[in-house]
């Protein structure tokens, strides 16, 4: 047998850290808030490329500022000369439309401007996107919990949901801390994190269930420890390969996929941690034993 690590003895310390991190994330989310993109806030986004070396970020900003567009946010986006401009204005009517904005910008900058992307989300749609995103996440969570409850026992369901909340809250907390933008593709990333974390937790839970029936007299804490150790090499290899693929998107996938990849990288690390240090201790606190799963075995 390979070297055995004592994870059980670290449960308390890890849980304290997790609780602090979750509280910290909640505080950040409530007080610092989230940087919602136009998908959820409504507004307009323009990505442009200027073919001139004497146009700087301040020129781009001032070319938009005299048009009454509300709060304007300009940043460099990837290559030199690429800018991403976001402004509050959500609806256009009459003479003020995207075409006039484009013409004004071209005239003030006195340079060739390539409008690579224009997105405009009205107030009604942004609300709907947010609520449908939340609905999709909640339903997906609910369905997964139901599956775990059917396949395992309710204690496992609770354990996996706590692990997932832990992962999602800390990821969103980090986004708040770093003021990274939350848009529709981040919702997709959060969902992937949920899937990944659940996958990881299921692998360990599967082993715990197997070992519970194998060593019916051993306490759950020790069972968890054995199971985590037995699956450890798999956990590491899978996390490594997934991180390899994600790093490749983060570095090479272009500006638009970068936020997605970053959320996923954070999520994979936290998700791997949580299956070991959140999902497993919870079974211990519930005092899950051979008897808990015996009922199910009879039915099989």
């Amino acid at each position: 047998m390979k070297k055995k690590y004592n994870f059980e003895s670290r449960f308390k310390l890890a849980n304290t850290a997790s609780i602090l991190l979750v509280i910290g994330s909640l505080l950040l989310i409530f007080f610092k808030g989230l940087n919602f993109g136009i998908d959820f806030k409504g507004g307009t986004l323009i990505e442009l490329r200027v073919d001139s070396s004497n146009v700087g970020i301040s020129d781009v900003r001032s070319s938009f500022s005299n048009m009454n567009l509300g709060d304007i946010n300009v940043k460099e986006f990837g290559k030199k000369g690429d800018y991403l401009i976001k402004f509050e204005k959500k609806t256009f009517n009459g003479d003020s439309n995207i075409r006039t904005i484009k013409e004004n910008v071209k005239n003030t900058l006195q340079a060739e401007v390539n409008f690579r992307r224009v997105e405009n989300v009205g107030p009604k749609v942004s609300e709907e996107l947010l609520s449908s995103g939340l609905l999709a996440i909640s339903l997906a969570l609910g369905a997964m919990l139901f599956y775990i409850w059917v396949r395992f026992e309710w204690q496992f369901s609770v354990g996996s949901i706590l692990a997932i909340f832990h992962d999602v809250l800390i990821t969103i907390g980090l986004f708040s801390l770093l003021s990274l933008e939350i848009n529709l593709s981040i919702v997709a990333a959060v969902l992937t994190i949920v899937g990944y974390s659940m996958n990881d937790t299921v692998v360990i839970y599967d082993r715990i269930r197997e070992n519970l029936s194998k060593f019916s007299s051993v306490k759950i804490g020790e069972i968890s420890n054995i199971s985590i150790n037995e699956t450890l090499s798999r956990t590491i290899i899978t996390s490594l390969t997934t991180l390899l693929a994600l790093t490749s998107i983060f570095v090479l996938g272009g500006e638009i996929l970068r936020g997605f990849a970053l959320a996923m990288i954070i999520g994979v690390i936290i998700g791997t941690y949580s299956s070991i240090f959140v999902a497993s201790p919870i079974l211990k606190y519930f005092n899950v034993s051979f008897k808990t799963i015996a009922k199910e075995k009879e039915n099989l």
Partner: protein
Amino acid sequence: MLNFSKTKILSIYLIFLFVSIFSISNFFDLNKIFFNKKINLGLDLQGGSYLLLEVDSSSIEKRRLQSKVVPLKKKLNDSSIEFKNFIISEKNIKFNLQKKDLEKFEIFFEDRKGNDINNYLDQYNSFELEHKIVNNQINIYLSKYGVIKLRTAAVDQSIEIVRRRIDEIGTKEPSILKRGSSRILVELPGVKDPERIKELLGKTAELSFRLITEEAGEFGSEKFLLQGTQEEITASKRIILSGENLIDAQPKYDNFNNEPIVAFSLDRLGSQRFGRTTSKNIGKRIAIILDNEAISAPVIRDAITGGNGTISGNFTFQGATDLALLLRSGALPTPLTVVEERTVGPDLGKDSIEAGVVSLIVGFLLVIVFMIFKYRSFGVIANFSLISNLLMLVGILTLLEATLTLPGIAGIILTVGMAVDANVLIFERIKEELAKENSNIQAFDLGFKRSIVTILDANITTLIASVILFIFGSGPVKGFAVTLSIGLITTLFSAYFISRHLTSMVVFKNKEKKITI
């Protein structure tokens, strides 16, 4: 677990071949030899414009309610019911009745057969209108289903008109779909600047020809400011001709002053009516009203009986072309507003797809190298299974004519992760069993048996989540869910059948030797 019959092996690889063969057309141009479908690229990858339009049905509801006023008053008079304080507002018609007439009113108002005021909608088991009585005051308004019926009709009609207008502009492969109860989704691949299309879709293009009169007459009159002048004109509300009577409209240059004009031809009914009106009113002026704006008001010099005419109004040639297009394609029942717009230029799309594909290939190669490094010959099996997995995934996406978006590429990358995980689970489990068992075959058999439970649990949980995302998610979430869902299914297939079969071949060959993973 390791025994495969010949038919089983044959059917596994036949399924694999059948599914993955459809992926070929994405890599090579087959010139329609056998199959020429390709995965559709989303607008974010190929460039194009996405417009979400909203049909505002409140004006139609108002108009519908107003159309009830004349027949209702007539019916009340015919039934000798006295009414007072008749008020029409945006959403209600209100009037007072005497107590004795209330029942009489309700009998005709809620008559299910031959009721030409309050239609009975069979498909909803409901009337078009509902009413309340408070202190002898009747309050009539559209019922829930009455509104639904109007709205559905308005959206369906709008889709038809939108399609005609976009076809006239001539963009390639537009997709026009109904979204929810009051929205229309328009996707225009390759369109870089949707402003002109937005302008054309934003106009209802309701055209009417009316006589200019001084006296109000029985229909009443309205005041307009004549476009391009300061002149105020009073036009009768009586419509001589409307856009519906037009069968064609084309932009032309005027023979005399070379100004752009729109020449139109009328249908039979329209020509008769136009001929009659113009011959009776020579010397008077006729107002041409488009979307509540008077665009011109020429003097009638001769009777126009041929059914052809022109509209002039200080147009540019582009303006005349657009107006002709709008008139040809018909009027929208109500204005459309753009509530969401996303346009990606072709070069950004190209950049995105290049970056996406490069990152996919690099990520994939990293994983392949890592697996060979870690598992040697079994790594080769895992990689073969991984490649066949991706080929099947692309094949199914092609067969379903699915749309590949940027988040979809991310879904494929996650599939790679899940597929590797399946193989890692199997190998690690076998390793454990090899340490305990003496017989190789026994160890492999147990390893597969036990790991497959975990693989199923893990993939099914993720699959459930991604199917739900596909159903309830929108936009990028959906694109992600499509590739992930299909990817999870192909992962299960390739891990359960292909990896298992290849491993069994290696194991049977090396029955007696010591196998290390």
